[in-house]
C-alpha cells in the first residue's frame, strides 16, 4: 500500500494530531515532565549531590521555609524594583523612539537599524562589556557622566545605591529597541484617515496623540511589556556577568538566588519549592495582565 493511500484514509483530526504530535511529545518531555517532577521534589528534602541518600517526604516544609525566609523577600523586592524601573523606562523611551521613527526623514531606516543593534547581542556579552564601561577609572560611562556634570570618581557596580541602577540602565539600553519595534508596528497600523478627520475637527496634536495614537498603540505596548516583564522576571545572565548579584546581595535577583540554591548548594527540594512559587507568581500575574490587556483591546 502506498504512503499516499495510507494517508487518504486518515481523518482531518488524525492528520492534525499527526502534525502536532511530535511537538506535543517534545513539550511533554522537556516542559511538562520537569515541571511535574519539580513539584514532586518540592515536597521532599532531596539533595541532588548527596548520592545514595533517599529523598524523604516533608510535606509543605520547603514552602513554609521559602515564604518565611527574610532573604527570599529581599530578593523578591530587588526583582520587583528591577522590573518596575526597566518596564517603566522601556515603555516611555520605547514609545518615544517609535513616535520619532514613525516620521519620515532622511536616514530613518539607518537609524532604526542602529537602534535595534543592542538587542541582537548576547546578554552575557553585554554584561561583560558594560563592566568595562562602568569602570570608575577608564570606563566610558563615568567619563560621559563627568563630562556633563562633574561627580568625580564613582563606582556603579561597587556601590549598593548605584548597582541596582547599573543593571536597570543596561537592561533598558539593551531592550528598549524591542518595545520600540512593537510600538512602531502599532503606530504604522493606525489608519491615516483618523488623523485627517481629527484635523478637520480642529483637534490639536496633543489631542490627536491622546485620543488616536495612544489608544491605538496601547495594546501593542502592553504586549511588549508583557514579554519584557516575563523575561525580566527570569533575568539571569546579564546581571550575573555584570555584578554577580552584588555588591553583597544588592542586585541578587530571585532567579540568581534560585540558581545558587539549586545548582551550587544543591538544595533540590527547597529550590524546587522556590521555583514552583516563582512559577505560580509569574503565571498568576501573567494571566491577570492578559485579562486586563484584552479588556483594553475591547474598548
Amino acid at each position: 500500500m502506498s504512503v499516499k493511500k495510507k494517508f487518504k484514509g486518515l481523518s482531518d483530526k488524525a492528520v492534525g494530531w499527526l502534525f502536532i504530535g511530535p511537538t506535543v511529545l517534545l513539550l511533554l518531555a522537556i516542559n511538562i515532565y520537569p515541571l511535574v517532577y519539580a513539584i514532586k521534589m518540592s515536597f521532599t528534602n532531596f539533595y541532588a549531590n548527596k548520592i545514595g541518600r533517599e529523598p524523604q517526604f516533608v510535606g509543605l516544609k520547603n514552602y513554609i521555609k521559602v515564604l518565611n525566609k527574610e532573604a527570599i523577600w529581599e530578593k523578591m523586592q530587588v526583582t520587583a524594583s528591577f522590573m518596575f524601573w526597566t518596564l517603566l523606562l522601556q515603555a516611555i523611551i520605547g514609545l518615544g523612539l517609535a513616535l520619532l521613527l514613525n516620521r519620515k526623514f532622511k536616514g530613518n531606516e539607518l537609524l532604526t537599524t542602529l537602534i535595534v543593534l543592542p538587542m541582537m547581542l548576547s546578554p552575557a556579552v553585554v554584561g561583560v562589556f558594560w563592566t568595562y564601561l562602568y569602570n570608575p577609572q577608564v570606563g566610558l560611562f563615568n567619563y560621559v557622566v563627568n563630562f556633563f556634570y562633574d561627580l568625580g570618581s564613582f563606582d556603579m557596580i561597587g556601590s549598593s545605591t548605584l548597582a541596582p541602577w547599573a543593571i536597570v540602565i543596561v537592561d533598558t539600553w539593551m531592550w528598549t529597541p524591542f518595545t520600540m519595534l512593537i510600538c512602531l508596528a502599532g503606530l504604522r497600523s493606525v489608519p491615516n484617515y483618523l488623523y485627517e478627520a481629527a484635523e478637520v475637527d480642529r483637534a490639536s496634536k496633543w489631542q490627536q496623540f491622546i485620543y488616536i495614537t495612544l489608544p491605538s498603540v496601547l495594546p501593542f505596548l502592553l504586549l511588549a511589556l508583557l514579554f519584557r516583564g516575563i523575561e525580566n522576571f527570569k533575568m539571569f545572565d546579564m546581571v550575573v556577568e555584570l555584578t554577580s548579584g552584588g555588591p553583597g546581595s544588592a542586585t541578587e535577583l530571585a532567579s540568581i538566588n534560585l540558581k545558587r540554591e539549586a545548582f551550587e548548594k544543591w538544595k533540590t527540594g527547597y529550590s524546587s519549592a522556590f521555583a514552583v512559587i516563582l512559577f505560580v507568581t509569574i503565571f498568576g500575574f501573567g494571566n491577570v495582565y492578559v485579562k486586563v490587556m484584552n479588556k483594553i483591546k475591547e474598548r
Partner: protein
Amino acid sequence: MKKIMILLFVSLFSFSVNSNAKSITLGWAAWDPANALQELTKEFTAETGIEVNFEFVPWPNFADRMLNELNNKGKTFDLLIGDSQWIGAGAVYGHYVKLNDFFDKEGISMSDFSPATVYAYSTWPKGSENYYALPAMGDALAWAYRKDWFDRPELKSEFKKKHGYDLGVPANWNQLYDMCTFFQGREIDGQKRYGAAINTERGSEGITMGVTAAMYAWGMEYENPNKPYDMEGYFNSPQAVEAVEFYRKLYEDCAPPGHSDAYMVANLDAYKSGQVAFQMNWYAFWPGVSKEDSGGRVSGFFANPKQNVAAATLGGQGISVVKYSDKQDLALEYIKWFARPDVQQKWWDLGGYSCHNDVLNSPSFPTSTVYAQGFLDSMGIVKDFWQEPTFVELMLPMQEAIHDYVVNGKGTAKEALDKIIEEWVEVFEADGKL
C-alpha cells in the same frame, strides 16, 4: 576519485589508530601552573606512550563545572586536580578513588610529602590515614609589593618621618595598612597609585579567601576544638569581628576604584598595570610575576603578615582519580609517575609548587626563587576553610554576608558573622552533623 578514496582511507585509519591509543583526560583550573603541568606531562607521554588530554576551566566556573561533572558521575575526567575543600565531598560521596592500597603497592609514602599538604589535600576524615589524593600543588595566599617604589629614598624618608619605622615588608596587618594608605592616591611617575588589590569577588570564593587571611591572623577558629561544629564564640569571637572590620577598612581606604568584585586575575592586572603598591594573591601567580621582573628589582614577595598569630589561607590542590573513570589504571600510572622525586623537582623548576620533602628540604630550595622562602614559611602556618562535603553550602552564605558588609557596607561585622553561623548551623543540621 582514486586520490579521494586513498585520503578517506588514510583519515579513517588514523582516526581508528587515535581512538585506540592509550589516553587519559586531566581536569584542572586554567592558570599558569596548568601550563607548566602540560609541559611536564610531555615526559610522561614520552615514557609511557599514554597521551594526556587536558581540560582547563577558568577559575570562576571551575567549581561549578567540576562538581557538576562529579555529581553527575561523568566520565569526562580520569584525573582531577580538585580544590582542597572538595576532598570531603570526594570521599563521602564516592567521587574519588581511595588511594591507600595503591600507595602501599607502589611504595608511595605520604611521609615523603609535607605534612600540612598531606593533611589538607589528601585525607578524609581530616588527619586520618585515608588518602583520596596525592598532594599536587602547594599554595597559600600571600602578598607581592612594588619593591622599586619601596626602594625610593624620598618615599622611604617620608614614610619613616610619618610612621616612625622603615618602609619595607610589613611585620603585621597594622603596618600593612599604614603602607597601603601611604600609597593610596599618591602620584608616582605622573600616575595616580593606590594601596592594595585585595580579594573582593562575590561569585565564587574570592572575598572569603581574602577575609580569612585577616581572620586567621587575628586568631579566629571555626569551631570549638573540644566540641565540633560549635561555632558560637569562636567564628564570631571579638578577634574575628575585629579582623573583618579591619578588612573592610583596608578595602575602603586602600583599594583602587572599581575593585569591588576582584579576585586572582583582577588583582594581578591591578598590580601589573602599576595601579597598586600591594597585591594579595596565591603563590601560584608569583612565577609569572617574577618572570617579568628582570633582576628582581620591581617586585618583592612576603607571606601573610601576622597580627595575633602567624597564619595564612591555604590554597592548592591534590590530584585524584575519578571513581567513574573507565581508565583508572592509566590514571594511577600517572600518579605513580608524578609522585617520583625527580618529576617533583622538575615540577618546581617549571613553576609548579611541589609538596615533596626532597624538593622542599633541599638546601638550595629557599634561595631557588625570590618567593621560595615565603612559600616554605606559609606552608607551615596554613589554615583552610571547611573541607566538609557541604563546603559549597558553607561557602556561599559567607561570600554573601562578607561581601554585604565589606563592599556593600551593610550592617556590622558581628551581624555578618552571626548570620553566617545561623546559615552554617542549618547546613550542618541538614547534613546530620548537628
